[in-house]
């Protein structure tokens, strides 16, 4: 099937198998390997991307469902060499260790802050409910998002 979509501001058109997941499309067809796969039951959030402005788990969507859509992946978060405030905050506050959950965490954080620019700790934790991190114990991820919120609001 032919699909056309915009990823990180660039338009792509590809002929793909209907059963291909959006994650696979990003990783295998577009070589955007920053979107990770941690599970097969939409439980870990490592694959989170933004589709038409909303965070989605790309492993649960077929690529064809994103046809005509506008996507942002982790590779599209920085502005050239200038990291997004969320990325900066993760670095500043040690919000990552092995880095495997990180792209999903950053994309989810962006979604949390888009809907709620001033989230409480509880709201942040609630917003991260769909994302597993096995390394950080979430402490510094929550801290990073709190600081990113401050940074963006100022």
């Amino acid at each position, binding site marked *: 099937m032919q699909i056309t979509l915009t990823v990180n501001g660039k338009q792509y058109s590809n002929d793909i198998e209907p059963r291909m997941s959006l994650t696979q499309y990003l990783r295998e067809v577009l070589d955007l390997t920053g979107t990770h796969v941690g599970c097969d039951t939409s439980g*870990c959030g490592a694959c989170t991307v933004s589709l038409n402005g909303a965070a989605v788990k790309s492993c649960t969507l077929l690529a064809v469902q994103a046809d005509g859509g506008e996507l942002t992946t982790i590779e599209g978060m920085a502005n050239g060499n200038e990291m997004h405030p969320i990325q900066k905050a993760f670095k500043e506050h*040690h919000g990552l260790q092995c880095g495997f959950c990180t792209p999903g965490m950053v994309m989810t954080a962006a979604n949390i802050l888009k809907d709620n620019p001033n989230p409480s700790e509880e709201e942040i934790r609630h917003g991260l409910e769909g994302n597993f991190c096995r390394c*950080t114990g979430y*402490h510094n991820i929550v801290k990073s998002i709190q600081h990113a919120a401050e940074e963006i609001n100022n």
Partner: protein
Amino acid sequence: MGKFVGKAVKRREDARFLKGAGTYTDDIKLPKMAHTAFVRSPYAHANVLSIDIEEAKNEPGVIAIYTGNDACGEFGVPCGWQVDFKNGETMREPAHPLLTKDKIRHVGEAVAIVVAETLEQARDAAEMVMVDYEELLAVTDPKQAMEAGAPLVHDQWEDNAAFDWCIGNDRAEVEAALESAHHVTEMEYRNHRVAPNAIEPRSYIADYDVNADKWTLYTSTQNPHLIRLLLCAFVLGIPEHKVRVVSKDVGGGFGSKIYHYTEEALLTWISREIGRPVKWTSDRSEAFMTDAHGRDHVVKSKMGFDKDGKIVAHLTDEYCAMGAYLSTFAPAVPTYLHGTLFQGVYTTPLIHLNVIAPFTHTVVVDAYRGAGRPEATYLLERIISKAAKEMGMDPAEIRFKNFIPPFDGVEEAGYQTQVALQYDSGDYHGVLERGLEMLGYEDFRKEQAKAREYGKLLGVGFSSYIEGCGIAPSAVVGALGARAGLYEVGHVRVQPTGKVSVFTGAHSHGQGHETVFAQFVADKLGIEMDDVEIEHGDTDQVAFGMGTYGSRSLAVGGSAIIKSIDKILEKGAKIAAHKLEAAEEDLEYAEGKWTVKGTDKSISFGDVSLTAYVPHDYPEGLEPGLDFSSFYDPSNFTYPFGTHIAVVEVDSDTGKVDVKRFIACDDVGNVMNPMIVDGQIHGGVVQGIGQALLEEVVFDEAGQMINASYMDYAMPRADDIPMIETDRTVTPCPHNPLGVKGAGEAGCIGSTPAVVNAVVDALAHLGVTDIQMPVTPQRVWKAMQN
């Protein structure tokens, strides 16, 4: 302390990870790379009657299908540690084949592998492989596995024991002391099985280059050199110098990526068969079925006390599951990494532990963050808290009463335990005192009493842990059954311009070595961190290494690097003396230059480096170059310790446990980067809380893991956990140059019993004295009703 050591330097590895530019194994794509899918047993115990691959072979895209009847069926992966029976009988070590041809011993065991052009084609064809099984009765519980008539995992032996083992004082003596003790506290429970669950699933690519007759194996391992050694010398019998193992970015390990897995060897073999690169990446269901699990001890224990609450004796019997085969480090976990910690932080004069390690019809059990030490700590810290309740003592008081007095390991000797080890240095009072201060203990007790009046159930739990890290002195572990040395290699190459490349055999899969190692290297040489690069995870780059686990990277790997830097400074001084026309003894090295003492005559590190590579005006007889590699074999383990305190609230209607506060006051020796140490503690603590409250691998009667997905296996999520309050004391390790003890496992070792102690404390007035982990709402609710 220098310019960088001790500071919260931000990590240099973060930029690539944050941009999605890390290179995890599954991110690698090679030209002409084939893909694979396994055919795995749905049964825990079965005879394989037949395997029919004919139809599958003709599926589109299929390149080859292999079963245990092919040549790879002759190979098996070895165990890396030998623990013989108490009576001298050799450990029972079954063959662990890459593909099984006749007998299935756990769900998920592989019977065939399909190699195809695409992953989808491989998976489609794998569906078409027809296997006839005859299902047999299975046993998954280690204690039941030793009952008469239990189904045998390996029928060449008369029972399921892989070995048995004991440590400590004479059993009869310990029993006699318990007989005459003023008070004896007893416990029986299961330190249940959990799944490590690194978020990156295991992934391997093997690439055989026929023209060079060389292999490259890209693998998500914590341990590239050991994998190469096992793969070459023990499994496939291929020359080690023809194999390069690359393990760059790895998405977490927690032990589960230490071991040499069958899939790694099988792919390496297949790549030569088909003359193409070949990839396999586990999916999560496969990970639950095939990654080594952790813990799984069935425990029965007694601790005796005198009338003042001092421990007089401790006796424990355990059944510790090995799983269907013996994984790389499995026999060491419930023995030398477990029994040797039974002294804890207490002066217990008599200790005896007896271990029976049975095979079970489950995936293998091996080291999971802490490995044997969390199980030891759980036992000691639960039983001492239970004893305090029974004897009407305060849980902090009973600990203070029993602590080993402080010793620095320099002026005061190390502490010789009853269970083989000699602790390096410790101040166990200090961390508990600080922990109580952080908690505000007195105020808490008042709050708790008041809360009870309103029907609110608050509890506090303590855990005073110690762990043996910095693994390990080779001769010691060799005498204990290790089939490898556990030293580390640190290679420091000074470039002609004075820039420094460091090659380490330690492996980072989240620990931040690229940053932390550069911090102390830069300080030691008095240069900028930007002038230091850290390389790891490639056997062609690094001479040798034993990888990262057992909180060993800094204590052992860091020490090896320091050794090489010492050699560089020694040789550099010779060159500097020659250039400055001074005697070597008259020079001092600081801030990146050699200075003639008491003068302003000096030469920089960069100039000396250049001279070493352009040796025109050069000391006679001295070799050019500034490049040294060192092996460091530690003289002892290191012994980090600390106090963990949990405050919980139990919902009296639902039994749900809410962790309100978690306090961790740890002593990991000197700290290179406090931000990273705190991060290690946070992560470990949450894994420990996970085991206490949420996580458990559950098998049904037939040996199926019934919660083998992220929907069913309850790992902690962000909203299950509070912020972690951390602080530390610093008792340097006396026997390594950096004075470090290791921080990777501490969080996971201390936290679990603290949480369960807190739950029991919250319910104590209802007569609850013990509760089985994981402390689910259902269990709490039941305990409250009784």
